[in-house]
């Protein structure tokens, strides 16, 4: 009896050890420097976010290895995406995606890699946007602007990014909802978009609240509508676009992390664990607040669904906008 118990306990112990061993061998832990790929050059939005996250991960002691940001600019996100696709099987590489990773392959023949080909891990940020005018603009509300645009079609102007950027898609949606028409002018850098507004060469722009914040405080800029479901905490007096009677789908600017194609369950679980803890950390919460970002934490199947829905929504909006949709 005793002996049986003894053997039994040994057997159990062995089994537990074995099980643990298996678990250990399966658990992924970075053993060398982590490569974080972004699609902008140094100083771009994605680059700054990736560098901030690399810094904060280290500060919160969540990763033991260094995270090195690698810039792969070119063709919007296309060069970065195809670089990640080539890294299939590489466990120490991640990438930072944005909404344009979804829209770009829809309109560009050469951009053969889609977000679904890669392995989405988490969504971290939702960037709200507002519509701004110059401080001395006669347009005090969205309605003023729309009416002015109806009175003289295509005489008013908006500065923004490419024709497939969120700025332009929002314009197209508002134009469709209201029947007003105005002109969209692309500028490659955010600096030029702002300086053309402040110089009075364009009348409105879509801008992130943090970027607009200082211009508002200095009395250079005024915000006439928030492109959000609820009013922004930092701009409580600015009504949302829906409050002003314009009902358009709000296109979220999402930012998050993904891995090369077909990343293993262990790698995904590792990063999910890290970002679970990271998204709750005080320094990340402070960073979100400073930049007036919304916490967009999402993972697993809901993230997959989000990306699918976004792809469908974007395809419709782009088609409606008259863009050539290739996939």
């Amino acid at each position: 009896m005793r002996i049986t118990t003894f053997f039994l306990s040994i057997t159990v112990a062995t089994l537990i050890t074995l099980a643990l061993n298996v678990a250990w061998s399966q658990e992924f832990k970075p053993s060398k420097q982590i490569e974080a790929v972004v699609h902008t050059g140094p100083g771009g939005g994605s680059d700054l976010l990736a560098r901030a996250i690399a810094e904060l991960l280290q500060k919160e002691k969540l990763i033991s290895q260094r995270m090195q940001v690698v810039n792969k600019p070119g063709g919007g996100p296309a060069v970065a995406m195809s670089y990640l696709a080539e890294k299939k099987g590489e466990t120490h590489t991640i990438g930072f995606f944005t909404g344009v990773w979804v829209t770009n392959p829809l309109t560009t023949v050469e951009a053969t890699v889609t977000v679904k080909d890669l392995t989405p891990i988490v969504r971290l940020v939702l960037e709200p946007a507002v519509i701004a005018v110059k401080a001395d603009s006669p347009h005090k509300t969205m309605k003023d602007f729309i009416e002015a645009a109806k009175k003289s079609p295509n005489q008013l102007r908006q500065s923004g990014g490419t024709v497939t950027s969120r700025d332009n898609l929002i314009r197209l949606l508002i134009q469709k909802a209201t029947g007003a028409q105005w002109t969209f002018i692309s500028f490659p850098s955010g600096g030029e978009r702002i300086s053309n507004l402040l110089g009075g060469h364009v009348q409105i722009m879509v801008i992130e609240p943090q970027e607009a914040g200082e211009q508002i405080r200095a009395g250079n800029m005024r915000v006439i509508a928030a492109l959000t479901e609820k009013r922004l905490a930092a701009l409580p007096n600015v009504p949302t676009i829906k409050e002003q009677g314009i009902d358009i789908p709000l296109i979220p600017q999402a930012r998050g992390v993904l891995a090369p194609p077909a990343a293993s369950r262990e790698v995904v679980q590792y990063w999910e664990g890290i970002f679970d803890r990271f998204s709750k950390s005080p320094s990340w919460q402070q960073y979100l607040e400073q930049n007036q970002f919304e916490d967009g934490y999402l993972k697993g199947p809901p993230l997959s669904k989000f990306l699918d829905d976004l792809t469908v929504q974007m395809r419709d909006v782009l088609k409606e906008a008259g863009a050539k949709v290739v996939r």
Partner: protein
Amino acid sequence: MDAFGNLLLGFSVALTPVNLFWCLVGVVLGTVVGVLPGLGPAATIAMLLPLTLKMDHTTAIIALAGIFYGARYGGSTTSILLNIPGESSSVVTCLDGYQLARQGRAGAALGISAVASFVAGTVGVLGLMLIAPPLARFALRFAPPEYFALMVLGLTMVVFLAGNSMVKALLAMLVGLWIATIGTDLFTAESRFTFGQVKLLGGVDFVAATVGIFAIGEVLVNFESRAGAELFKLSKGLRNLFPTLQDLKDCRFAFLNGSVIGFFVGALPGAGATVASFLSYGLEKAVSRHPEKFGTGVIEGVAAPEGANNADAGGALVPLLTLGIPGGNTTAILLGGLILWGYRPGPLLIQEHPQLFWGLVASMYIGNVLLLILNLPLVPLFAQILRLPYYILYPLIVGISIVGVYSVNNSLFDVWMMGLFGLLGYLMRKLDFPAAALILGMVLGDALERALRQSLMMSQGDITILVTRPISGILLLIVAVILCLPAVRKVRSWRGEAIEREG
């Protein structure tokens, strides 16, 4: 507080031992980064940003800004010695700098570029201190039509880059303009001339093209014609290691020209140091008493563009510090840094954080002095590199070029592109096409096309928008005058000949 009182505050901040030390670290790092092609100041600052989080913020921005303007200092070294443009803004420096080096005057060229950088850096700081807010307001009047006129003005510089044949120069420029169209169209997001290559979606990398055309092309030509022969005349003794008094005198106007153009162009968010350096080179040649010698190694041809690309660093900080608008990649990173440190960069920054702004301005004065002290003794040392025999020098040039081009995007594709452009550079030299005209087209093509299309969008297709606005009108008038100059000269010389014949 007046500017003087503010500056005193700035110096009291910048002259503390800690800040002085980090200023030194910044400018030394900047010089090193500038010397090597590829790794630019933007990438360096981005890499070092995390290290600055624990530093005092003023100290941190002093160190990072030191990298920014220090890199402009160092950029000239490889351009002059090896015909490798260290930064895109030092392409123009190659034209006369490398020729000077071949004539045994590398020391003079390096020295004059250090002095020009110092003068321009100081002018840039003065400008930043005295006229930053009004200049930023003036720069806001630049809309697409004004940028278009500025870029056309830049393109007319081809008149001054042409060697023997204007037709060849124009052809080279057109090829450059075409190369600039390769990649993704900003407006429609469609791809042009990419032949299905993902790697061409971002366009042809500028560093790969310039290093290929200048450095690799030069090596190929020399390899064929001069293998075994002496490539460089070597200077004997100390006399030729530094610029002479006469050199400094010759460059009086170039210093001023480079500084002023560089500063103003730098303050425009849509232009850049490369445009500024081409413009100042063109102006220098236009007013020169011996324009025909440009491109064969004249000292002013080094001083003007070097001045311009240094003053640009001061100018680029104008929109950043007064409006919170970054002028380029490097200033965008500095902006990110300011946000990460908890500042709210924007129109109120100078008012609310005077110690930060004035400390930075004062540190730039000090940094410029440090750079001059650091760089002048290095000149004879660097010039020694030309004593190397060709069988060491050529592989060295090719090696530095490959590493440099690879490190820009970590892309082997870019290295192949460099090789391709090297062949192009070789052919152009053989057939006597001016390479600088091609580069000019490449630099300006993007901005020119963009500004034209933006202007036409603004005016609903009415092309008169380009000439009816005051600033663009004046700029285009200058263009017309420049284009007429050679014709006027020709008519005059015909007349002279006719009078001689009759008399």
